[in-house]
């Protein structure tokens, strides 16, 4: 294909930046067009580099990137305009993304935002070379309210701001920097009387996340050694027998995925670690990656070697700068010490991990959208079948696992299946991470064996006068106060018409108005729909309009009509959307109507 380039030339510095990322120009001309097209997976890293350096992607820079990667400019434009963290128009170099999502809203994000905007004045932000924006959940819910500071330039910075107030937000804008957030403290430690031993979080807060030696001293890499000694067949059997199921939300048996890919005749095989944690209220994977990054790398290595993959992709949410930094450090250390590379631990296995950054798109947490994003396409999901184990990343057999799922493999191997299954229930063996936030005395990440009652978790977290619990995130369901005796297992939540989802437990008491929460959920799905299929693209718009009418008590027709409409919208999105985003976009809202009696006067 002959591509017509963008007429605007790049500036010298844009050209130099792209060349620094891709190598000197010319090399790709020696390969055929087919191979040149294979460079497309570098599109997202290229856009990141430009955004980081200049604060936006100029026409000239986009054009040069397209020329180097042999990507049609219209398609690259389509990709760049898909992600919230890229700008195609000139922007101030400093941006403060203030989270106004559920946990932050409950913690007063609106007040903070108003305070910052009042101080900056109507035009003050631009004059100071900065911009203040709202952001969906930033995955720091236990330290709400929070924000993300992005500073473009020759030394670009992305910083998470926690326990935000107007003063710290303004100071960060002024200094164009912010201190690192304090290290994660597990609220469970010392408060549960040792009832719930930590398995996945054992090293969190105890080991230095930047030290491979420390990791090894605390049991790290024992599982990989074991896996290499015993071989893939053993690992496959152990993972299957453990009953481990995916922790990202869909709860698919991990062993079955691994076996399918290990046995797939098509080559090469790929491993993808889904670390694009974006479900509102979820922060478990962030804590694992920030505090125990070597565990993620080790678990990926075991998975990769077991399924016969030589390359794994670790796709981290763009809004997780510290996790990205820690993982990059862990990968470099592992490489230097022979835990990754052409001959892992001298046992003849070859495995390498590519670290990739998301760019602000919830939908990229959907597995097929994630593949598209890595491949350099718009993060649009596709219909299944074919499933990723047959047609996955780059069209090859692929295992895609969530961070928490992968980390479970370590104790399965080191402790053995019997001990692993000693915790939890028959239907849900092992432990589960719960992201507790909202109106509780001790928010944070908890690890409990499956089967513990929700009420016990709430007591541990110091919840009082619970009015509602959002279980499983924005794609989950609300529970009413009389449902808190629910046992936290896959089977019990399913029976109750709820879902554990990504482990979100967002607690609301009487001090939090419910309706703004529901409006935020409706807005979230409308903002994050990829726009591909009609039920979700238009359905989330109609749903937000409807929720606005219900809240404002300005019904079209009778309240009964609106109730029918809410149900119909829910049904078409659930039944006819391509992916899980649309299929769950009405779940929390419908449960709020059914269980919490919201809009009772307008909708009933």
């Amino acid at each position, binding site marked *: 294909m002959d591509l017509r380039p963008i007429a605007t030339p790049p500036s010298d510095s844009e050209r130099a930046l792209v060349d620094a990322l891709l190598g000197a120009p010319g090399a790709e001309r020696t390969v055929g067009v087919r191979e040149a097209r294979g460079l497309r997976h570098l599109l997202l890293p290229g856009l990141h580099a430009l955004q980081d350096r200049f604060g936006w992607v100029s026409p000239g820079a986009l054009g040069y990137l397209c020329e180097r990667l042999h990507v049609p400019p219209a398609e690259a434009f389509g990709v760049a305009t898909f992600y919230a963290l890229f700008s195609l128009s000139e922007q101030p170099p400093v941006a403060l993304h203030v989270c106004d999502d559920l946990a932050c809203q409950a913690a007063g994000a609106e007040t903070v935002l108003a305070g910052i905007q009042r101080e900056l004045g109507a035009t003050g932000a631009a004059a100071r070379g900065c911009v203040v924006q709202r952001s969906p959940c930033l995955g720091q819910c236990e330290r709400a309210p929070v924000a993300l500071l992005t500073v473009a330039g020759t030394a670009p910075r992305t910083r998470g701001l926690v326990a935000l107030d107007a003063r710290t937000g303004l100071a960060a804008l002024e200094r164009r920097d912010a201190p690192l957030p304090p290290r994660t403290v597990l609220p469970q430690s010392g408060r549960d009387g040792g009832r719930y031993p930590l398995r996945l979080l054992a090293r969190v807060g105890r080991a230095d996340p930047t030290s491979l030696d420390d990791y090894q001293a605390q049991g790290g890499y024992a599982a990989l050694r074991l896996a290499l000694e015993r071989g893939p067949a053993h690992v496959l059997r152990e993972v299957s027998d453990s009953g481990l199921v995916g922790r990202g939300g869909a709860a698919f048996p991990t062993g079955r995925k691994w076996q399918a890919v290990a046995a797939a005749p098509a080559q090469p095989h790929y491993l993808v670690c889904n670390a694009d944690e974006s479900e509102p209220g979820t922060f478990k994977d962030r804590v694992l990656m920030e505090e125990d990054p070597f565990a993620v790398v080790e678990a990926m290595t075991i998975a990769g070697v077991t399924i016969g993959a030589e390359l794994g992709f670790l796709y981290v949410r763009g809004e997780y700068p510290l996790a990205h930094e820690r993982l990059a450090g862990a990968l470099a250390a592992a490489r230097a010490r022979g835990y990754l590379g052409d001959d892992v631990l001298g046992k003849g296995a070859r495995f390498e991990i590519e670290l990739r950054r998301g760019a602000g798109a919830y939908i990229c947490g959907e597995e097929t959208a994630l593949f598209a994003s890595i*491949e350099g396409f718009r993060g649009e999901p596709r219909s299944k079948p074919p499933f990723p184990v047959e047609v996955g990343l780059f069209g090859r057999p692929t295992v895609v696992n969530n961070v928490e799922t992968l980390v479970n493999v370590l104790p399965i191997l080191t402790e053995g299946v019997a001990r692993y299954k000693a915790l939890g229930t028959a239907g849900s063996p092992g432990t589960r991470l719960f992201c507790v936030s909202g109106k509780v005395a001790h928010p944070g990440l908890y690890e409990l064996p499956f089967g513990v009652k929700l009420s016990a978790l709430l007591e541990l977290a110091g919840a009082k006068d619970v009015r509602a619990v959002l279980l499983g995130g924005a794609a989950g369901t609300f529970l009413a106060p009389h449902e808190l005796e629910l046992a936290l297992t896959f089977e019990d939540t399913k029976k109750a018409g709820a879902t554990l989802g990504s482990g979100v437990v967002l607690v609301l008491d009487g001090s939090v108005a419910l309706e703004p929460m529901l409006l935020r959920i409706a807005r979230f799905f409308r903002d994050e729909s990829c726009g591909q299929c009609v039920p979700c693209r238009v359905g989330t718009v109609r749903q937000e*309009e409807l929720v606005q009418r219900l809240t404002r008590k300005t019904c079209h027709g009778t309240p009964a009509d609106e109730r029918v409409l809410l149900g119909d919208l829910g049904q078409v999105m659930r039944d*006819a959307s391509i992916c899980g985003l649309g299929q769950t976009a009405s779940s929390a809202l419908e449960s709020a109507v059914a269980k919490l009696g919201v809009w009772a006067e307008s909708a009933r």
Partner: protein
Amino acid sequence: MNRKPIEPATKERGTPATERTSERIVERIVELSVDGQKVSVPEGATILDACKALAIDTPTLCWAENLTPVNVCRVCVVELEGARTLVPSCSRKCEPGMVVKTDSPRVRTSRKLVLELLSSSVDLSTTPCLDKWHAHYGADPARFGPAAAPAHAGEREHAHPGHHDTPDGAHAARVAQPPKLDNELFVRDYAKCVLCYKCVEACGTDAQNTFAIAIAGRGFEARVATELDLPLTDSACVFCGNCIGVCPTGALVFKREFDLRAAGEWDEARQTLTTTVCPYCGVGCALTLHVQANQIVKVTSPLDSSVTEGHLCIKGRFGWQYAGEKTKRSEG
């Protein structure tokens, strides 16, 4: 960072392109049940193929026989026993023993809602067969409330992904906007665009391999665009018009059709269709001339033409103005 090329296994991202049944060596026959009737289809056929074999009328918008199915409009969904959600009949391959329902309450609700969602947000006044399906499924797009005001030119292009102005719910948001008139050959009236991806496919690997347009933006603000929203004349567009040929809603139209419609003179009842061969080169593309009042008003190519498969180049598609203009000039 790995700077090496990684070659994808399929010609395009996503579902491997469906090979057309007629061109494949058929090895196996698959038997399934649709609405209680047994049907046998060649392996690789879709549920839509099976429906056609049984003469079950199925609405489609984003499907076309000369393009890879993208299954985005979801108006063709059917109920498949054992599946959690409905499945798109246009792309789902038949498997032995499948039990499919095309007229269950779930299917009827979803098809009705999809029609309502589309009709309330897009101008479907030039979409064929729409009234029939609206009546069939009892679609009532008005229940989402009165339509919102149209966007100004360029407004939708400036939306930033992940951000939108909070609505008050009084009006139903639409994609309404002024048509894009940036060349003499065809008009892009995106107020009528259902985002079926067909034009993008035809411009890309399914026909033309020009890649002048792609989907840009996200969510409700997703749109078909050239790079940087440039006018077509400054883009990679080669004016083959294959996008017009596949557009299901009349969002992409010949300038002449657009002008005649604007003047209220477009009248398909008065048009004759004549299939002939393009005079320009030796390929021998089949052309269908749409003639109204002794003037060519539009040119298409038959989908079943083995030469074109419905696609043409700029000469065949647009190089006919002389046929009408000549008389005009000699008169003037």
